[in-house]
Each structure stands twice: as structure tokens, then as C-alpha cells.
């Protein structure tokens, strides 16, 4: 369990949200949400549709400004930061949007190269853009799609390109917004394997919003085996220990804890995010 009191940011903190409140015209999207993510940690954010998972991630990226509360990124107070300061912070963060968020007027190569060419703080020399794009696409096993446009790819492939684009800048924190939404179970597992691969090969902090319990279960209990090129069950509970589950409900953070605690919950709303898996 993480302490949510107003303590100063620790150096190994990657992300800290304090009492975030966000109101839309006639509703409250987020109600005093606090949460912390440390280096190398994984946080699974679960919740029903419209419970505030996406806005939470967007606040962490500075795309939406909260009405109240404070945002710390990499130990730096970003609450009143300018867009320019956010741009520097975003150089160290990656995001996969729900539908991939690929620019459909650009080729896959330009899409993946976009953050390298446009985020100044990444400092990528023009000659290095192409090799790094290729490397990122190799990472998601889509090395042959450089010249295609997003509309030529399937939903799962677009999601994989989205992951390549999120990790091409070698970020310390990657945010995934419902990476498996609308995908068939096999493709969903492929996507989750890539999420685990990125986490385990580069030790990135991961925040993943999802409505599927399986996604969290996979990240908590499996690790990427670089030799076999697939997910293998984690021995010991090292992975489980650094994986936290939070559950959002109606804009509130209603649960925070380990997988075991989530499964032990007797609350009707919370337990549905654990029970669905068992049935």
C-alpha cells in the first residue's frame, strides 16, 4: 500500500499524483485521486468504462490540467508547469493511446520517428532516426511495415506500432491506455507480451489502464524471457511484489493493493475485476 499523504517527492519516484480533482461541465471525472509510481514498478489501473482511467493517464502526461491537486513527474512538481516544461518531461515518457492514436496521414516510419524528430529534449541526430525507428519496429516484430500507412494494418498491428512509437524514445515511464480493448484474446496476449517485454528488458515503470483482469494477472505473474522470446511464469514473487493494482470507480480510487488483496476483496464493485477471471 502506498502512502498518499502530502509528503515531498522521493528521488526514485517516477510519477506522483496528489488529490487530483477534475470536473467536467456537469460531472466530476476524478475525485481526489492520489497515487504514486516508483522506478521499475507496474501499476494496473482497472475500472469500468467512464471511471476515469483515461483522464488519469492524460493528467499524468500533462494533456489535461486538473482543477485541483498536484502532479509530480520524475520528482519534479509539474502542477503549474508550462507546455514547454511538459514537452521536456514527455521526452522521458511514452504513451500508447486507446486506439493507437497513429497519425493516419503518415507512414509507419514517420509515425514511429515522430517523437524522435519533434521532441527536442530527446536530442536524436537526424542520421539516427531511421535506425532507431527500425529497432523499435523490430521490437514489436513489425520490421517490414515501414512504408505502409496505418489504414493498411490490422487493429492489433496498429496497437503494436503504437507501442513502438511509445518506446522509441527509450522512456523511463510508459503509459498504456487500454492496450487490449477491442482485440481478440490471442492478439491481446501478444500485446501484453510486448508490454512485459518492454518492462523487463528496459526496466521501465509501467502504468496500464485496462478493464480486463487477465492483463494485470499476466503482468504480475509472468516475465519476458529474452532467450526463448516469450513470456514465462515468474519464479518467486519479485514481479508480483512490484505490481500494484488500483481500481477506479466513479472517478474515485476505490482500491489499491496487491493481486492477492484484490482477489480477497469482498466489495461488490471491486471484486468484479477479480472474479471475472476466475469464472
Amino acid at each position: 500500500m502506498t502512502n498518499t499523504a502530502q509528503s515531498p517527492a522521493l528521488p526514485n519516484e517516477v510519477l506522483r499524483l496528489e488529490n487530483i480533482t477534475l470536473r467536467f461541465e456537469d460531472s466530476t471525472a476524478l475525485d481526489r485521486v492520489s497515487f504514486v509510481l516508483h522506478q521499475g514498478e507496474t501499476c494496473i489501473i482497472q475500472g469500468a468504462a467512464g471511471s476515469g482511467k483515461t483522464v488519469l493517464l492524460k493528467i499524468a502526461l500533462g494533456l489535461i490540467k486538473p482543477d485541483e491537486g498536484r502532479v509530480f513527474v520524475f520528482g519534479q512538481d509539474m502542477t503549474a508547469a508550462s507546455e514547454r516544461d511538459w514537452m521536456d518531461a514527455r521526452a522521458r515518457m511514452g504513451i500508447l493511446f486507446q486506439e493507437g492514436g497513429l497519425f493516419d496521414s503518415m507512414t509507419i516510419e514517420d509515425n514511429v520517428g515522430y517523437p524522435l524528430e519533434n521532441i527536442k529534449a530527446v536530442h536524436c541526430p537526424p542520421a539516427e532516426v531511421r535506425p532507431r525507428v527500425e529497432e523499435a519496429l523490430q521490437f514489436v516484430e513489425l520490421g517490414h511495415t515501414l512504408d505502409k500507412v496505418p489504414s493498411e494494418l490490422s487493429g492489433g498491428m496498429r496497437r503494436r506500432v503504437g507501442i513502438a512509437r511509445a518506446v522509441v524514445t527509450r522512456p523511463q515511464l510508459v503509459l498504456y491506455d487500454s492496450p487490449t480493448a477491442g482485440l481478440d484474446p490471442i492478439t491481446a496476449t501478444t500485446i501484453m507480451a510486448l508490454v512485459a517485454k518492454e518492462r523487463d528488458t528496459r526496466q521501465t515503470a509501467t502504468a496500464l489502464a485496462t478493464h480486463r483482469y487477465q492483463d494485470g494477472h499476466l503482468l504480475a505473474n509472468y516475465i519476458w524471457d529474452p532467450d526463448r522470446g516469450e513470456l514465462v511464469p515468474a519464479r518467486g514473487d519479485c514481479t508480483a511484489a512490484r505490481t500494484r493494482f488500483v481500481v477506479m470507480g466513479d472517478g474515485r480510487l476505490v482500491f489499491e493493493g496487491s493481486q492477492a488483496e484484490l482477489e480477497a476483496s469482498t466489495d461488490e464493485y471491486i471484486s468484479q475485476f477479480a472474479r471475472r477471471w476466475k469464472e
Partner: protein
Amino acid sequence: MLDWLKSQVLALQNFVTLSGRAYVNLFRSPHYVDDIIIQMDTIGVGSLPIVLLTGFFSGATITLQMSRALNQYGASGEVGQIVAISLVRELGPVLTAVTVAGRNASGMASELGSMKVTEQIDAMRALGTDPAQKLVTPRLVAIAIVQPLLTILADAIGLFGGYIMAVLALHLTTDTQYWSSAHQALEYNDLLQGLLKPFIFAQIIALVGCYYGMFTSGGAQGVGRATTQAVVTSIVWVFVVNLFIGQFFINLR
């Protein structure tokens, strides 16, 4: 009622903020010159056929309609003057703006709107670019350059349409008389007005089109709504602003 007022004020605030950013970005790097050129091609070259057709037929129609009145006063030789003045001062700029708005305000709103609903605008910000700089400013610059040029072409082909109608079809006047009467009718004031109008209309079209696109919400249906509103709003504003510019130039004399 209060909610409605509040939403209108909020919309105005968003529009002014977005427009302000679009203009400020003119003086700030990076400048997306490639995007400006692409937009000039899409808007300018793309609108050329429809603008030329509109221009030609309006010139010919004015001549046709005016011929009866002019004959009544025995002044059919002055037809060139009427076509020239009405085209250069009013119909050229306004009709071109209406056709360009119909074609491009909708195009901008739907393109930016679908980018908005598929989170591409968010992605742009997350990946290091200011969407206003990358999307709005190039469109604003491109259309402000091409709109006066399109209007000049529309005026020219409109005069030619009038000529075909007056000289070749209705035999109202002679070749030289038509062109000299048209030429003499125009003053520098008219030309200035005829070029200033499209320059201003262009900015209305770009800003309104981009505004509706950037503030689209609600999926595919929202994109459709944004597109319609962009066309309607920009055309209404073209007519309103047209009156004020006309008034300004009348007072100037």
C-alpha cells in the same frame, strides 16, 4: 438559458485562444513550411475548378440579367462596367469565399475533428508538437495566400463570362467597348477592396474550420456536426464581415 450563455462564452473564449495561438505561432519556430505548401495545394489548386466555374457563370449571369435593364435605358454599352464593379467588389470575393468555405472549412473541420476523436491531436502533444502550430497555423497561412489569388482568377474568368454573354451571345456591345468600359470602371479603391476581402474571408474560413475541428467531441457523429457547423458559421461570418468592409470603404471615399 444561463447554461446556454455560459457555453457560448466558453466557445468564444476557446475560439479566441486558438486563433491567438495560431497568429502568435507565425512568429515562433518551428515553422512547418511543408505543411503550408501541402495546404496551399489542397486548398488553392484543389478549389480552382469550382472557383473558376462559379466565377464564369456568375459573370455571364449578371450580364444576362442586366441586359434588359440596360437596354431600357439605352445603355447596353456600359455592361462591362456593371460586370466589372459587381464582380471585383462583391461577387468575386464573396462567391469565392462561399465556395472555398463549403469545400475547405468542411475539409478542415472533418480532418481535424477525426484526428481529435481518434486521439491524434493528443498524440501530437504527447509527442512534442503544438497542434495549433502544426495544424492550424499552416492552414491559416496557406489559405490567406491562395484566397486572394483564387479571387483574382474568379474575377478574371467572370469578366470573360460576361464578355461571352454580352458580345458573342447577346450582341449588346462590341469587343473593345466591353473591355474598355470594364477597365475604366475600376478604381484602385475597388481593387484594394477586392483583395482585402478575400484576405480577411480566408482567415475567417481557416479559423472557424479549425476551431470546430479542434473542439470536436463525440465520435463520428461529432465530426459530422463539426463539419456542418464550420461551413454554416464561416459562411455567415463572411457575409457579416463583408458588410462591414463594404461600409468601411464607402466611408473612405
